[in-house]
């Protein structure tokens, strides 16, 4: 409780200091960047799968994961967020330009210039390549349309003021740079998948009091945001699986002891089982190269 009050105070101060200042003003992607790129739906599907867009945006309880009607709830220290409808319909992204989409996914900025909350992991997607972004957009426009209206989030003051997210972004949001070194092409691919697309750290890395990832304890395990239990560490002091074990887990959900994955990791495994074996091997290599916190 005390922590929440403190956070609220700090954020309120930030808003006060930030209103009208450039720190809280949204920054946009330079439209010229995407000019000349053409989207490929097949490659876009792979980006979509690795990035796990459907895992958050499909309707709760629905078996058709490609209908991105939204509605799933995400609990956090700051309130509950609901994933919006992002299907190509009136209730979703119909009428959006490619530039609108790029600003949302790469910068966390809406078409009307409002900040999105980082419950939408644009903090990771910011590192997505321009080609992947364009491919992803091409693919998503061909998905089924659904008319379910998006729900309002359930967050209290001061977090309900989207402008306050500008202060948060000023402190914690970087659009480039990586956490891990990647000296080989395989590690580079693994790093791109882990840090940019699949946002593994969003679950496996602990957060500071303001909800930002603690990069000093990268992948060191974290409390489960929905309350009880913990999300396991992937660092070598805690996880002694071989690279083959990790790749096999991402493919099948089976641990080396043939226990089976549960909880939110199931969606990640379902996605990775559809990707090429080389991608699973690259992620495994990245995980094996992590250092203990």
């Amino acid at each position: 409780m005390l922590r929440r009050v403190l956070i609220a105070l700090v954020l309120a101060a930030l808003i006060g200091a930030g209103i009208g200042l450039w720190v809280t003003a949204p920054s946009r992607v330079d439209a010229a960047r995407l000019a000349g790129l053409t989207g490929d739906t097949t490659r876009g599907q792979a980006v979509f799968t690795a990035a796990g867009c459907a895992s958050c945006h499909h309707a709760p309880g629905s078996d058709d994961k490609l209908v991105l009607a939204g509605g799933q709830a995400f609990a956090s220290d700051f309130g509950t967020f609901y994933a919006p409808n992002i299907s190509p319909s009136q209730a979703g992204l119909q009428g959006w330009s490619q530039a609108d989409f790029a600003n949302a996914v790469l910068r966390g900025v809406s078409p009307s210039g409002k900040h999105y909350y980082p419950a939408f992991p644009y903090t990771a997607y910011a590192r997505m390549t321009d080609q992947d972004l364009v491919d992803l957009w091409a693919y998503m426009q061909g998905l089924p349309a659904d008319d379910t209206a998006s729900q309002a989030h359930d967050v209290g003051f001061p977090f309900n003021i989207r402008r306050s997210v500008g202060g948060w972004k000023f402190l914690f949001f970087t659009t480039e740079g990586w956490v891990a070194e990647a000296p080989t092409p395989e590690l580079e691919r693994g790093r791109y998948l882990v840090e940019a697309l699949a946002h593994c750290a969003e679950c496996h890395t602990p957060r500071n009091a303001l909800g930002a990832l603690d990069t000093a304890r990268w992948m060191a395990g974290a409390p489960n945001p929905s309350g009880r239990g913990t999300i396991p560490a992937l660092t070598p002091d805690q996880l002694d699986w071989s690279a083959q074990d990790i790749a096999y887990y991402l493919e099948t959900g089976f641990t080396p002891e043939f226990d089976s994955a549960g909880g939110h990791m199931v969606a990640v495994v379902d996605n990775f089982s559809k990707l090429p074996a080389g991608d699973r091997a690259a992620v495994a290599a990245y995980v094996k190269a992590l250092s203990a916190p």
Partner: protein
Amino acid sequence: MYKTFAALAAATALTATAAFAQDLPKEVKARQGQFQIMAINLGILGGIAKGAIEYDAATAQAAADSLVGISMVNPAPLWVEGTDEMSIEGTRAKAEIWDNLDDVVAKWNAFGEAAKVMQAAAGEGPEAIGPALGTIGGTCKACHDAYRAPQS
């Protein structure tokens, strides 16, 4: 001195776990043991699929038959009220199980169906095991996704 203390602490920790395991209701021990039997038999089939264990038709068949055998144990008596992870220590069974018992049983039956697919495939050679394993794995994940809590 320090060493004695460490040894003492280790011994206490050991007794603590032992006492703890004994305190678990028998139904919880039974269901956890049952899941372990499943994992052990899957380990044999998975080892073959991965190429880590050499294929032997009789061994593979016995593992698959065991899975089918376990799937025929009626799960209902193992899910006793009050044995969810909110109520007692030492279990990862989510309270949601008791709000959706029909669905839990349906998911258990789905595992049983997948085990039968494996039973038919196990004698056919190592290549047949991989796909059947994928089918079974899907049924484990589906239930763990909904009804098993994260590690505490």
